């Protein structure tokens, strides 16, 4: 399998020059305890089940490694590519809003059988997504969900007090903007199409995609111009 940093103890200086914080992963988060901590029941169960499935010929270790590599390769970049295309190609945007799954597949996203519904933010409406029942999330477009997306606070509260929850994310919406909260299911996932920031006229898709982060496609943030560009746009 590809080099996996979780396989090693977390000493530093293994050439991971991009590690910015001591004890943190390349994405800046602490690792979960893994190899060096006492074996937990859940870990033992994972090993046992995996080995049984391999022995029975149901899966191979290589297929497991490939599945992990595919999952690791997924990131919000795929979703950002879809958003940037929709911002620059009105015909694509129309297809995306009509049939999100088909339009995402056009750009090479692996959507499987699930129905993807894309909801568009504009001056009058802000959309935000949740899965109140569990953790359904457009992971083929955004990667695995953040921890907060799966926790009680978000799942319980965003459907009754979305403005207050968004404000905890640092997003304060004007009263005249309506907030729509979309509750996902196992078979139907949502993606927010954020509004294209002003001051980005003539930008390339690639440059636009760099403005679109995970949170803006969940709807708990909106894309913003970097400070320098904002000044340029204003001037």
């Amino acid at each position, binding site marked *: 399998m590809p080099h996996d940093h979780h*396989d090693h103890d977390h000493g530093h200086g293994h050439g991971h020059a991009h590690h910015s914080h001591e004890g943190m992963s390349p994405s800046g988060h602490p690792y979960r305890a*893994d*190899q060096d901590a006492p074996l937990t029941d859940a870990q033992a169960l994972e090993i046992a*089940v*995996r080995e049984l*499935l391999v022995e029975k010929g149901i899966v191979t270790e290589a297929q497991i490694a490939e599945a992990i590599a595919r*999952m690791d390769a997924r990131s919000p970049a795929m979703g950002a590519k879809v958003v940037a295309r929709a911002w620059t190609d009105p015909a694509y945007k129309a297809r995306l809003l009509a049939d999100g799954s088909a339009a995402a597949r056009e750009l090479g996203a692996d959507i499987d059988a699930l129905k993807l519904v894309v909801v568009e933010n504009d001056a009058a409406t802000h959309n935000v997504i949740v899965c*109140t029942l569990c953790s359904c999330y457009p992971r083929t477009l955004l990667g695995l969900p953040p921890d907060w997306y799966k926790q*009680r606070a978000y799942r319980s509260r965003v459907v009754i007090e979305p403005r207050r929850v968004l404000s905890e994310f640092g997003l304060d919406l004007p009263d005249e903007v309506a907030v729509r909260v979309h509750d996902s299911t196992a078979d139907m996932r949502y993606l927010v199409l954020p509004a294209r920031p002003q001051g980005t006229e003539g930008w390339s898709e690639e440059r636009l995609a760099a403005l679109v982060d995970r949170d803006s496609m969940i709807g708990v943030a909106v894309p913003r111009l970097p400070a320098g560009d904002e000044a340029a746009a204003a001037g």
Partner: protein
Amino acid sequence: MTERSWHDMGGLPAGEMDFSQHDFALWEKRVDALMTLATSRGMFTVDGLRRVLEDMGPEAFETLTYYERWIESVTRNLVEAGAFTPAELAEKLAQVKARGATYGEASLGASDG
């Protein structure tokens, strides 16, 4: 008369957002991969996964981590699908735990990339 299940938590009071974030450990990614591969082989579906998770109740939600709950559910679904028997699982678990005290030691050679 119906009562809402514990997992149907939309709209209920809850605390402040907690923004702490962890990267997933290898064993957690493997649980996710086992789920993906088992369902792609038609052994069970996401509905089966959720049925067991929901039956585990609110205590499990509060005390176990996400993939700790998942591996329990994946295991139960695989037993129901006939992938292996409870006796085979018990025997394998005993072997795994006898190998060593850490995940690395209990994993045979397959844990290294």
